[in-house]
């Protein structure tokens, strides 16, 4: 059988990020495919072994570009577990605000990313316009738009600036009022429904086989499998929120869950702003030198719920000033590598970009 080879990425408008899907195509049906990762390989895990614990804070956000704060959170909370460190109460709440804003930003970007493969650029433009507002808020809080280095071991780097609550409320209100518009432009748009309904399925067996987490899992198994719920970190056990689920996972239901999660995140941030106590936001992680403090021996797996699923850091300390080994579990690792190899075949090349998009595949966290 004669096959043709097509590529989705690295230099392809349908691929967000620097990875390449190699597809062997017959007509327009994909017969075999695999992901060629490594275009973003920076030797991250090696780099982290060579930096001080505190230096690593500058490095880790760069693991995942669209949503850098989860890295900081996973790393900081892992180190805190090793240090057996209790951080101030207010820091927990600020972390939650930051994480939820990051989640909204990532969801908006992914949802706007629907505009690429389906061609509705207006949706993309609107989503990015709103995302830019979040980046502005981040800049006010942390001083940086993308890589904040704000969640540090022992709390957060500094307290929220004065008056930021007002900005946040303004933004949240405007975003909430526009969610309907997003639905109309995207998943409720008749021409887009044709593309995303009943395609790119993710049945529950596949979820378990691959180990998909996050929205992919929740949309298939109809259970609130969200680390924020089942194994709460920070103060997620003290806020009220729902985890949207469904029992039929096509592209549309996953995007639907995304939009619903944006709503939930808005609610969480509002509760945080309300319930947040006053107080210090940072403690010193350890006694001793200002930078070269040590962390006790131990292994810890520290995980957070990112916008794409379970994001974990496996951290090993040998009692020194540097981490002995840090392993990163990218949230999109299972669907990105094994999923593309096993379940992209059989779909059409029209759907390939959409497949990669709605499965939530983020190449930097696969390569590291």
């Amino acid at each position: 059988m004669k096959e043709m080879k097509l590529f989705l990425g690295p230099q392809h408008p349908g691929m967000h990020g620097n990875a390449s899907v190699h597809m062997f195509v017959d007509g327009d049906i994909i017969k075999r495919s695999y992901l060629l990762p490594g275009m973003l390989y920076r030797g991250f895990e090696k780099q982290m072994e060579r930096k001080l614990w505190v230096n690593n804070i500058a490095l880790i956000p760069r693991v995942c570009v669209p949503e850098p704060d989860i890295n900081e959170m996973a790393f900081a909370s892992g180190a805190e577990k090793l240090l057996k460190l209790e951080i101030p109460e207010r820091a927990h709440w600020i972390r939650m605000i930051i994480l939820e804003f990051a989640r909204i930003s990532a969801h908006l970007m992914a949802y706007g990313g629907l505009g690429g493969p389906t061609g509705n650029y207006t949706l993309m433009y609107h989503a990015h316009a709103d995302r830019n507002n979040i980046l502005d808020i981040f800049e006010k809080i942390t001083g940086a738009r993308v890589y904040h280095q704000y969640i540090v071991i022992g709390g957060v780097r500094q307290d929220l600036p004065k008056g930021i609550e007002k900005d946040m409320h303004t933004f949240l209100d405007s975003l909430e009022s526009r969610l309907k518009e997003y639905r109309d432009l995207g998943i409720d748009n008749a021409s887009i429904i044709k593309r995303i309904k009943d395609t790119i399925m993710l049945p529950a067996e596949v979820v378990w086989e691959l180990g998909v987490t996050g929205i992919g899992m929740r949309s298939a198994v109809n259970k609130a499998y969200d680390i924020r719920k089942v194994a709460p970190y920070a103060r997620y056990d003290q806020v009220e929120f729902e985890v949207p689920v469904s029992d039929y996972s096509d592209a549309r239901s996953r995007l639907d869950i995304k939009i619903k999660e944006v709503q939930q995140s808005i609610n969480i941030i509002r509760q945080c702003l309300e319930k947040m106590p006053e107080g210090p936001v940072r403690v010193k992680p350890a006694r001793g030198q200002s930078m070269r403090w040590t962390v006790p021996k131990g292994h810890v797996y520290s995980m957070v719920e990112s916008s794409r699923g379970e994001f974990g850091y496996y951290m090993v300390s040998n009692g020194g000033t540097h981490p002995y080994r840090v392993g990163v579990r990218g949230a999109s690792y299972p669907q990105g590598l094994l999923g593309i190899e096993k379940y992209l075949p059989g779909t059409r090349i029209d759907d390939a970009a959409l497949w990669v998009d709605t499965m939530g595949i983020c190449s930097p966290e696969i390569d590291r």
Partner: protein
Amino acid sequence: MIVNILVGIGIALFGFALQTSIGGINRKIVGRLQKRHGPRWYQEFIDIFKLLSKRGISHGWIYDFGVIMALGGIIATAMFMPLTVDIVAFKQFDNFFIFVYLLAVGMLGMAMSASGSGNPWASIGVMRALTTMLAYEVPFLIVALTIINVSDSSSLTAIQAFQQTAGNNWFIIALPLGGLVGVLSLMGMLGKKPFETYIAPAEIASGPMVEYGGKQLGMLFILHEISVFIEVSLFVHLFLGGASNIFIFLIKYFTVYTVVNLISNVNGRFKIDQVVKFFYKWPLLLAIIQAFIAIYLGWVI
């Protein structure tokens, strides 16, 4: 004869300038829709001249020849196009079928050149373009059949004159179902979303244009602008009563193109088989019903 040919070239040139400016203005309008400023209105001219000034690549003689043939075919088609009832290069010879089939020469040239580049994306794009053509042409031609049958001529100027003399009775009003089909087919012809399947940057990396750069791409842009001019004017002449003077033509042209563009910009794109299914379901049925009503029953408003 020479004068006629010069008039024809003038019309083609006018069409190019008109569509390029209106395309630029439309980019600004769409920019506003997307919460931004948009480019300068003459940006499309700059783009085209820039492309012409670059040093591109060539994949062999068919790659160049196809582009020349495509642009030649489109320019030739535009030269037949009447602007108003009076401004037309070749009276009596502006036959409707010339536009449909001479346009196909352009398509064929471009398809040849794109396939000749040896890129699979380009071939897929060509395949999609041809399939889309199969989808929208049949309903459109049925409506055209009705119009020709009713107005008793296939000359565009005669069809315009027919609509204008009968108390400005536009065919989009006289044949409402046909008019609807006409709009949908026009969107397919222009390759507007949701029928933009053959460009689809995210799926097939801009389809037929994938290997073009430099002057070849510049010529394809000129080709695209002129073919949009042809298709929109065809719609204006067939359905909107043509124009008795150039200003009316400009107004109608601008309105049609802008409306179509705005509709396009809040839609996603279909898959290619969905495009075919779409056109062979309602538009074809409506076109046939319209033809039955108009030809056999004689019910023309």
